[in-house]
């Protein structure tokens, strides 16, 4: 009987390790797919995969994070406003669910800050007023939880770039922010192999463009 218990424990340990391996494999494959995706169907497909993973890994916020990220990317490509909102609703749903798992994850607040600009773009005159403060709140919270999160700096730089000069925006104001973001990306080490680690390349490209604009 003792032996049987030991075997059972061993088996369960073994299968646990097995499951972890499966999770990591499925995640890393999907993350790779996500960052290669170009069209809406490709994003939907990978978001679906993340949703399936999240249904089983109830204590992991990462699958939900990536599913939400995918739907934000879809909203950038969607042309119909109603559908844009629908996609952002979906992204928000995943994000809200992720926040129930971990309330103190900087990346989730960063993602929340990343979601708002897309909402605002649909009806900037009306939504800007209420959502801009919400976005700032989310980004502040993200920085509070991790002052070195490079994506927050990147997002701040991009927002500044697109803001009217009158409101403290424009290329000249954005330039130092892109540079700080680049520094932060340079020293950033993701917590795990699966943790968010995107933004470095786009930050570099935008930094280059901004530099040229400022020189002119």
């Amino acid at each position, binding site marked *: 009987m003792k*032996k*049987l218990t030991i*075997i059972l424990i061993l*088996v369960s340990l073994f299968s646990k390790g097995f499951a972890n391996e*499966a999770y990591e494999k*499925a995640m890393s494959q999907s993350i790779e797919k996500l960052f290669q995706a170009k069209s*809406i*169907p490709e994003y*939907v*497909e990978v978001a*679906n*995969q993340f*949703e*399936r*993973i999240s*249904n*089983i890994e109830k204590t992991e916020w990462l699958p939900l994070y990536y599913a939400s990220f995918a739907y934000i990317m879809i909203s950038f490509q969607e042309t119909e*406003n*109603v559908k844009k*909102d*629908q*996609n952002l*609703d*979906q992204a928000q749903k995943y994000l809200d669910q992720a926040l129930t798992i971990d309330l103190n994850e900087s990346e989730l607040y960063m993602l929340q800050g990343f979601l708002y600009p897309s909402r605002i773009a*649909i*009806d*900037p*005159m*009306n939504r800007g*007023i*209420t959502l801009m*403060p919400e976005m*700032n*709140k989310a980004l502040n919270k993200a920085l509070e939880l991790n002052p070195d999160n490079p994506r927050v700096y990147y997002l701040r730089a991009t927002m500044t770039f697109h803001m*009217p*000069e*009158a*409101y*403290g925006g424009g290329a000249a104001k954005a330039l130092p922010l892109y540079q700080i973001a680049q520094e932060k990306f340079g020293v950033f080490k993701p917590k795990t192999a699966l943790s968010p680690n995107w933004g470095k390349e786009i930050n570099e490209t935008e930094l280059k463009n901004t530099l040229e604009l400022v020189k002119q």
Partner: protein
Amino acid sequence: MKSVMLFFSLQLLLSGAFAQVQLSGKVTDQKKNALCGANVYFKNSYEGATADSTGKFKFKTNLKGLNVLTVSFIGYITVFQELNLDSLKSKDLNIILQESESQINEVVINAGAFEASDEKKAVILRMFDVATTPSAQGDIFGALGSLPGVQKVGEDGRVFVRGGEGYETKSFIDGMQVNTPFLSKMPDMPTRGRFSPLLFSGTLFSTGAYSAEFGQALSSIVDMKTDGIENEEKSSISIMTVGVMGSTTKCWKRASLSVSGDYVSSALSNLINKQQVDWTKSPSGIDGTVMYRQKTGKTGLYKFFGTMNSNSSGLNYFNTQADINQNILLNSGSFYLNNSWNTMVGEKWMMKSGMVWNYDRQKFNVDPTRIVTTKNMVQCKLDFHRPINEETELKLGGDWVNYTYKQQILMGGDYQLPFTNNELSGFAEVEYKLSKKFATRLGTRFEYSTLLKESTLVPRFSMAYKTGNQSQVSLACGQFYQNPEDDYLKFAPQLSPEKANHAVMTWQYQTDLKTFRVETYLKKYSNLVKYTMPLATNPLDYSNSGSGHAEGIDFFWRDKETFKLTDYWISYSWINSQRDYRDYPEAATPTYVSAHNLSLVYKRFFEKVRTYAAVTYSFASNRPYHDPNLSGFMNAKTPSYNDISLSLTYLMELFGKQSVLHLMVNNLAAFDNVYGYNFSNTPDSSGHYESTPIKSPYVRQVILLVSIML
């Protein structure tokens, strides 16, 4: 034993590989359209697939036994299907998904109502729209003028809805009454609302057939909603050609405090803008507002909203009727304190309680006469809401209003005209959603007045049915009572409440960024106050024998989508209304009713110059008036009304702070609008009654404002 175990575990491990099941199929909606992107999977494994552009999917699974196949897609109801995977090699499935009703698609009872809100998705106006509509001149009630069903009555400034007088529109803040929502008014001059639109996050404006929650309003209600807890500390200061304004907000974890104040004087503005009246003292005033919000317990929110103001103005007024020049001085002061506390009681009951104290005092000096009027109102209200089940919601409530009116007239003697009324009311309302497509609301309201010694019990009914994804038809009807105006009650407290019946039918098409709405209505008035002559002092000169009717059709179109960074709306109303009330010898169209009202609002953001521009054009067809030089009653008509107003908002940086430069021009084209005529009471030697036109106090008005966020 060992070997048996090993065998079992091996088999367990390998069984999957041997018995894979191939699943394939198609996901469509009810009309057989492929749903590309649908997620098909088993809940307890990573395995699954995404439907392709033809709706087809295919995947293999290692699962055994009974499993639940899940199919989900954005905007559709998720489907679960149980499958026994044992003894299956492959399975072809046809899955049909049903569209889910999203928030904007769900039926909402809306006949008669225009909602401006920053919180809800499906609204027609937002508070930002109110603040930036040039014809509104920064006034909430002014902004309502760009909606259908509202008459342009330039010499009054209050809200005249569908053949109703100004007093027939009642104002509320967070569901609690506001007795004096407007500033005191000089004769023939427009007034404006006491409250800045910046204080509110939403407004419910109902042009008829409203819920049983609201009473003592014959035509219309305006319910302004204050913000919840603020989550951003901010301060701003504004300098205008008409005064200065400042505000600051402080936040805590579970509370927030906002304080704002202003000093307004039109002295400078009256110099810049040519005046058509002779001011002896330019209108000026100070206002202060305090808002405090505190979360209580898990679900409660306490709100305090307090505002006070003091205003004065002086006018050299030619009284045509009496044929004399009068020097009028007006001083007024008021305060409004609104406490409300909303919280859950138990699991299901939502309790809303509130207490209001509204005091208003105005002093009219028309040498040698002095008229001092004080109005004091206290309201206590208690409401309960609860869902009975998924489809049904119940609302119950009651309120008590204590109102004391006092007028002192010093005119060759000291005359006192006081009265006190206690109004007790209760209401009950049930909203029942038969399906996502069909909803009804049935309510009743009871009111008793201790002054009039009369009670009323009225029914209210409304329903809405979705005719399509974005469209719905609504019907509403009800009975409405309102006590006669103070100016009649002070002489004749034996009067009965005035009565109106409303029936409204609406068809509305709405997407996130476009709205089209047609509404037609019928209104019947009875028990309206009639009197033998204006200002009659004998109670027996007043009776409730008046009556009237109004019918019409309103159109509204708003589009934020078609043109880039552009938002425009068009309102048009047609009305036919007659009344036999006051001292009318026969039924006639009242002076404030114009058959056609049109309003165009166009707003656009010009990115390059960082300027937000808005233009409004308003038109009202001619209004009737009574000319004693002609035969018959209400025998003449004013010219039609035209107005073009413009506002420009320029975003800039001032002292390193975000700032706004705001320019507002009213009546840009300087149309010479005439609202009516005042006639002399006595004819001159040739038997002719002299008249003077009633006009706007200014020809064109330019106001400049700089606002700095600190």
